[in-house]
């Protein structure tokens, strides 16, 4: 059973006000002299993404058994099944609708869907955002300016921005 913690709201009397002003200015000066930057200079650097990151989808047609489950489970109706010339149905993904919940990845019992670490993608227009099965299979065009990736690490409560060399993001590590 949790206890009750009753806080006292401080009333700013004169000495406390003076102390408050001095402390505020002191903290500001401290940060001015020894800056603690947390910014990642995207696109020159890129945040290191965790291995289970939910980025754009990768599709493996060989594993797909056309079970329709991904299309059925998709909360945003982003996955549509279309009939291919060979008579089977394969998924198309509409990235205008996709919310990257990756239910499709978790639904697929054969492992045909996989995650990649691409998250900053651009499409020329709305029609292009519907990726047909052929486009899904084609490797995406990648243009990258970043030279290194940054990982947040902590040591004794202090932030260390660890710099890693160029990172391959086509494959998410989980599987």
């Amino acid at each position, binding site marked *: 059973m949790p206890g009750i913690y009753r806080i006292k709201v401080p009333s700013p009397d004169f000495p406390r006000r003076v102390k408050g002003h001095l402390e505020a200015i002191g903290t500001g000066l401290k940060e001015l002299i020894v800056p603690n930057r*947390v910014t990642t200079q995207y696109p020159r650097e890129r945040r290191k993404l965790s291995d289970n990151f939910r980025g754009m989808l990768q599709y493996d047609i060989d594993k797909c058994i056309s079970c329709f489950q991904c299309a059925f489970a998709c909360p945003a109706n982003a996955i549509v099944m279309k009939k291919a010339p060979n008579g089977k149905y394969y998924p198309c993904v509409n990235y205008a609708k996709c919310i990257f919940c990756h239910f499709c990845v978790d639904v697929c019992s054969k492992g045909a869907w996989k995650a990649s670490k691409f998250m900053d993608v651009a499409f020329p227009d709305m029609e292009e955002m519907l990726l047909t099965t052929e486009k899904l299979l084609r490797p995406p065009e990648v243009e990258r300016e970043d030279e290194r990736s940054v990982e947040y690490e902590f040591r004794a409560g202090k932030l260390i921005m660890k710099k890693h060399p160029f990172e391959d993001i086509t494959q998410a590590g989980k599987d």
Partner: protein
Amino acid sequence: MKEISVELPVEPPVEVKSLFLPVPPGLMEESYKKDELVIFVGPQHGGSGHMRIIVRLKGDVITEAIPDPGYVHRGMEKLAENRLYLQNIPLLERPAIMDCANFNLGYVRAIEKALDIEVPERAEYIRTILAELCRIGTHLYDAGILSVFLGHTTGFMWPFAMREMICEALMRVSGARITASYIVPGGVRRDVGRDVLEYIKEVTFFIERKTKDFEKIFIMNPVTAARLKDVATISKKDAIKYGLVGPFLRACGVEYDTRAVEPYGAYDQLSWDVVVADEGDSYARFLVRVNEIAQSISIIRQAVSILRSMPEGNVISPDIAGKKKKAKKKEEEGEEEEVKGPSDVRGKLYRYYGRLTLPPGEYTTVTEAARGTVLYTIVSDGQSTVPYRLRVVTPGWLYLKGFMESLKGCRLADLQAVYGSFGYFPPEADR
């Protein structure tokens, strides 16, 4: 002072009629004739969210504040009626940006209540960690908004940078930075590794250390205290009357926290305090939430150390995974073994939840989200895979009345301070 009224032949502009303002008839005409000023704060104002507050001013003092919410109404309740129970998870965690786990948890708990299943202990602790991370994130977010409303830009940037670490933690746990969709009926989607737990623990130390600096530059800053102290004070009686919730109710001296009254998750197994203040002014509302961050940090640390000593795996209820049935069969055959749930939902999500139907009835859960009580009611007809009716009452909607009432008698400059002290978040209230 004696007031002199002059009948002036002034009419409000014609355009006012076409705005369909939710104001009592004659208010505009009346205020135009008097020495009053009606100004619209929002929805495109730097100091309002996606909502309009119609403020009636007498000099610099607010005599009436009428909310005009609904600019970000998405019809979540109706949308939910056309989706599978599983598909509603990403939908219903979207009202509040940072508070996804709490909103997700409330909905999932309603389903669990209907199915009457128990959640594995490990999953409960992971859920608690996630909910508290989101609580810290939301409180930091609100602190940032409050400080930028007070013109303190450093106080805006620092909490957002701290929140970034929480986003990172959410990403390492679930794969997404804000909308985790991580909690599913009967457990969580996958187990949390040791390194991620370590990271979460380190984040709590980071936030604790940085909050001390933040306290010096913003929280205990005399300017902040001057702006928030004795502004928009709500008495304990009024707070109950207006139906305030969450930290704003507790700031008025009411010792009510859903986590303590109806414990869920792992809250009853951890030691923590309900933060209460007596003053009921804006500063108390802010400080209560600042102190709740410290409480959340303590909860997370306890949960992490318990999780570390727990065997890995078993994060989804065996009931959901269909293992109970098998076990029963085996039990009948004479073999007895401990039933363990799976550690990952991968590949089986559809099998577990795709054709989920709830027994007929009405299931309600109350959850303590960061900004207060969030209520979910699922009405099921017992046959369909979608809810017959889903009711969501978000904290923002509940404390809107108290927010507007507390504005009366404040000055115009206080509007933003009070707004920030309530952390009012229109998408959350509008659903």
